[in-house]
């Protein structure tokens, strides 16, 4: 690990620190500069060329022992790619190994054979005659299906005992439902096809992997009974939270005894419900929705195969909707996994589904947006993520302490930058556990920082807070921290899920580490996630921008009434509405999709800006219906659940022009839009 300063002379931006009047410390900072790093300065992305005519909607990736990359696709093909790392500047070569399976969403190489899951079965492929093409498609184990498109199957991975592990997705019929046996479950299957149900309560378990200890972690997507994305360690007999699959818990071999009716639908935090419902497992690490992903996918353990900087032993987690990779540090406290999730690398070309290590320690990301849309606009592809050997200034780990947290950095910090409370911010919050799709952030409270202590080597900073809340997610922001070399953090926030508060010695608060209340609480941050205590919720009172009743003086009703819904491909079903200036308008927006949407009328030419602002609402986004407080937003609906409808009334602007309407739900605004043409 080296830090090449010369590289940054090209890329780095030098910005003057915020001028803070009053305090002596601020006077000291005044003449310093902060140096900004960017992800691409450390982690370049390279796209694999794909021959024309191949649909590279990746469902599975695995490295073969001969250094070729095997790729499974939605079209049911398995491609073998030689020289995928493009060594010596030579392009990769593609060979079709197998064809015609029904949507492969997992691929592995186990004991000399290629295994994969398609919709209805776990399959083993063999090339018996050695001609380079599979000629044996052996069904290892198959399961019934109802014929629902949402009945996906994933895996296999190999557990530490040598069993194959697969998961089966719930169907979608306006809500998640287990339409056929073992959907919503994790199953273990031996090489000779003996199946044992392992755990229940899954919704959309697209990604799972083992950590260094051989424990299984799976990634879940926000949805019904799932307030936000997460990764969770899975033990035999666990119930992970979505009750739909519990209709099979009475079948022989089920290690789960809970029934659907055992699960209360109260909207209390899942951690609290789990205290009353033995067997209900809560996430190891929550991924706050829209901030760190909207659809977590493949998990990659940073083992000895990888070369990604100083994060060995951590997990990388991909995201389909936001085309990015997050990083997770895990620790066990009182035998329970918990830890922190950090941003790692964004800007991939399409939705990430699968991650594997390349032979050179780089990482392949297999991608598809599969008709749901993604921040990266390509429909599919494979990209290679490298580490160039330079070490970014990052929070390497966060560990819980009895009285707060200890942050470990990749480089020594500038002690002066961490002395006052404004260097950090800690907020605790959680989500509702209920049948409704997703959840707003609830019970959010800022914690008061009482002491900050820097280790002798300046690599660790201990933060003491007034209190911690067990079971809650703790947002930890570090906007003020600078490295000894005056770099700001590449990513200055993380989310720690505190399942257990460790016991042990608390830090003695001394004059040296005690912090005074901050004089100037706001530094520049590359995200704004300040939770608000305002009680505006999803059902907030109508405002001028969100008028849900026809004004009394509209004697003849609206001049124009529009009823919009969605159509496949992240689109409104009407993309041009024409009204006269000053017309009385009603818009009815019906969310007939299987994800959340709103409709926001914006000033001409500002829909992207409004979409970006909505993205930056962070934790408050859902509570605010992803409506940023800006004059660029003219009118809007609420954020609508699947099958919800909202009516809004407004008077069209007096000034003619093209007023764009847009869905500001993160990841949607670049494509899901239309024009309200005022004539």
């Amino acid at each position, binding site marked *: 690990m080296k830090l090449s300063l010369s590289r940054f002379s090209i890329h780095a931006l030098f910005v003057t620190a915020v001028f803070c009047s009053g305090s002596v410390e601020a006077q000291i900072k005044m003449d310093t500069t902060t140096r900004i790093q960017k992800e691409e300065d450390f982690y370049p992305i390279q796209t694999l060329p794909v021959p024309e005519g191949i649909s590279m909607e990746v469902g599975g990736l695995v490295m073969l022992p001969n250094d070729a990359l095997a790729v499974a696709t939605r079209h049911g093909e398995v491609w073998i790619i030689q020289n995928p790392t493009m060594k010596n500047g030579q392009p990769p070569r593609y060979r079709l190994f197998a064809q*015609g399976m029904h949507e492969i969403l997992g691929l592995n190489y186990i004991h000399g054979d290629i295994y994969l899951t398609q919709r209805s079965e776990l399959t083993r492929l063999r090339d018996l005659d050695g001609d380079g093409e*599979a000629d*044996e498609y*052996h069904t290892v184990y198959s399961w019934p299906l109802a014929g629902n498109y949402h009945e996906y199957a994933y895996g296999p991975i190999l557990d530490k005992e040598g069993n194959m592990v697969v998961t089966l997705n719930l169907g979608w019929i306006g809500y998640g439902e287990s339409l056929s046996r073992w959907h919503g479950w994790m199953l273990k299957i031996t090489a000779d096809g003996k199946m044992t149900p392992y755990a229940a309560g899954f919704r959309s378990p697209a990604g799972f992997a083992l950590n260094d200890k051989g424990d299984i972690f799976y990634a879940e997507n926000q949805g019904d009974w799932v307030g936000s994305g997460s990764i969770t360690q899975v033990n035999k007999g666990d119930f992970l939270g979505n009750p739909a699959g519990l209709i099979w818990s009475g079948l022989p071999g089920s290690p789960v005894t809970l029934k659907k009716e055992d699960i209360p639908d109260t909207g209390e935090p899942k951690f609290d419900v789990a205290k009353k419902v033995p067997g209900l497992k809560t996430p190891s690490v929550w991924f706050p929705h829209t901030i760190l992903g909207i659809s977590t996918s493949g998990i990659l353990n940073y083992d000895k195969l990888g070369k990604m900087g100083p994060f060995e032993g951590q997990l990388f987690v991909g995201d389909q909707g936001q085309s990015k990779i997050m990083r997770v540090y895990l620790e066990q406290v009182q035998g329970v996994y918990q830890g922190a999730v950090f941003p790692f690398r964004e800007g991939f070309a399409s939705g990430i589904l699968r991650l594997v290590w390349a032979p050179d320690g780089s990482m392949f990301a297999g991608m598809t947006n599969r008709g749901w849309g993604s921040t990266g606009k390509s429909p599919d592809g494979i990209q290679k993520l490298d580490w160039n050997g330079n070490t970014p200034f990052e929070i390497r780990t966060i560990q819980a302490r009895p009285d707060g947290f200890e942050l470990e950095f990749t480089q020594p910090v500038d002690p002066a930058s961490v002395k006052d409370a404004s260097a950090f911010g800690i907020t605790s919050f959680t989500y509702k556990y209920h049948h409704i799709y997703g959840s707003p952030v609830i019970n959010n409270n800022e914690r008061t920082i009482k002491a900050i202590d820097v280790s002798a080597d300046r690599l660790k900073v201990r933060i003491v807070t007034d209190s911690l809340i067990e079971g809650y997610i703790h947002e930890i922001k570090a906007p003020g921290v600078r490295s000894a070399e005056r770099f700001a953090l590449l990513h200055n926030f993380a989310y720690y899920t505190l399942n257990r508060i460790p016991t042990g010695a608390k830090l003695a608060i001394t004059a040296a580490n005690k912090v005074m209340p901050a004089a100037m609480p706001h530094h520049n941050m590359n995200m704004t996630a300040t939770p608000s205590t305002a009680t505006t919720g999803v059902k907030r009172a109508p405002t001028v921008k969100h008028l849900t009743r026809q004004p009394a003086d509209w004697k003849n009703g*609206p001049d124009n009434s529009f*009823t919009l819904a969605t159509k496949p491909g992240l689109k409104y079903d*009407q993309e041009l509405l024409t009204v006269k200036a000053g017309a009385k308008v009603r818009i009815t927006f019906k969310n007939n999709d299987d994800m959340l949407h709103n409709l926001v009328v914006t000033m001409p030419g500002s829909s992207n800006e409004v979409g970006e602002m909505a993205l930056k609402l962070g934790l408050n986004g859902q509570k605010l219906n992803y409506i940023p407080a800006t004059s660029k937003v003219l009118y809007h609906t609420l954020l609508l659940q699947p099958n919800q409808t909202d009516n809004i009334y407004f008077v069209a602007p007096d000034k003619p022009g093209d007023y764009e309407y847009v869905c500001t739900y993160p990841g949607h605004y670049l494509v899901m839009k239309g024009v309200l043409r005022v004539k």
Partner: protein
Amino acid sequence: MIAYKKSAVLLGVALFVRVALWGQTSGEVSLPLNDLSAFKEPAKAWQTVSDAMADFTKPGAMTAIKGTGAIMLTGSGTGLSSLVTTMESSDLELDMDFLLAKNTQATLLLQGRYALVLNDSWGIDSASLAWCGAIGERVSNQQAAKPADVVPPSMNVCRAPGLWQHLHVKFRAPRFDAQGGKVQPAMFEEVVLNGTTMQLQVAAASISPDALLTEEKSDGPLALLASGPVALSRITYRVIKPLVTSLINLSYTYYKGDFTDQFPDLAKFTASPKKSSATLTGISTTGDGTYAMDYVGEIEIPAADRYTFALLTNGVGRLYVDGQLVIDRVTSRWNRRFYTKDVDLTKGSHAVRLVYVKNLGNIKPGLALTIKAPNSDPVALHEKSSAPVTEFTDPVVIRPAAKPYLLRSFLDYGPVKLTHAISVGDPRHINYSYDLKQGALLQVWRGDFLDVTNMWVQRGEPQTAAPMGSLVKLSDMPALAALESPTAAWPDSIAFDDMQRDGYTLDKDRSPTFQYSFKGAIVADRIATAEDGKSLLREITVANAPANFYCQAAAASKIETVSEGLYRIGNPSYYIRIDKRYKAISRQTPKGSELLIPITAQAGTIAYYITW
């Protein structure tokens, strides 16, 4: 070309006498085939039969089965015969069953002038103008006079000689001005062979070289030229007559307001004074946004008959005729199809009311209403500018290249959505689907392989693959069963947990062998293209077969023995061939007949061919 053509012309020079068409308003007419009276001076080689059989290996061979109901041309297979109806028509919709001998070349002449090839093109894989379903002609291996006039069909779905095939043609006669000048050419609007569209909206720029009538006119007979044995049955047609009608005394009330997907109670909305209107349109000159237009008027029906109304709206629509609600179109905005309803109407004036609710805001108003008599084309009752525009998704199609393509998918099979189906497409355009859950060979088809738009575009919610060629449905029942007695019914299915599905292996030529076990039997079910792409060979090997174990080779309403070991199954039909050493058993069941092959522990392999 010349010698052959001359004979055709000579045969066709006879005067055509126009006869009164029977059943002019009732639509479909069956050509009587109890004798040959429907044809003008038929050659002696034509006879009435009840059925015909042909050996698909012997050129020109066809056997008559005595009786009536069908007609058959016998003969050496070397000469050319023409058969001409006494009936003449202009626009025509024709349905006909036909059966060819091996190598028979036949041409159907619409109006005695425009040729449609009905050659035996079974198994000819390279695209050819001689394919059954081609427009134009290339009889006797002559090149067409104007190659541009010859259009091969979309694919070759010709059935094997000796199997009944079905042809549907919608033909539009040329149009002439008052001076007799042609203003619109003749059109093959649609040619459907064995359920698969061969041709769509093809103009016949000129008459065919082998035409019996050489001058283009509004009317003409149907004629068949054949150079070998052919049988015809169930010939029905509709003479398409223009339906002359329109809406009169039309007026409407305009309502302003806030409408939903449901049909509104118009009394609750603000009405504008009633206005008369020259035409029916969904476009309002009063205002845009959302509104309703409640049209009332009359329609003058020229003759008593069963009429079909069709309504398409962007928004909600309701049609009332004589005060009765006929079509209730609650909006489903992506459902762009017409809603239709048949209504019996007497001659004379009938009250029509159409309520159109544009509940979708400023989406383009769209309203189309048509009426059709059984023997007419639909007549638009709306103004042209009011008709909604149709949108389509770009299709995704799999075309097997050098080797067979196997694709697993969901598959619609009748009303059932199968979840463990696999379809196999041979580059020679012979395809089949197989249910891995039952070991059932579901269906076979010739022509193009699969349309997978519903699987691979966007989210692919149906996840179904759609066969593109001419389907022959076989059976979704298990191929194998142990029967407790010789009369025990064949089981409908094998329970999911009673069968272990083991997958499949592929030969060098990628023919699969499906493997599974149930009831202790270990099954290998190999299906391969055989006989140069003309047949499928199914070989089932069972180890550990239980007692009284059988393979059901066919189950159909009717099973006929053509010759020893050769069976013609069902209708639409296919052949099963079983070597006599397998000792096939034919048995009657309440639903028809079954063909069973015993499988014993001693002789665990059986085989049969499927030919169609």
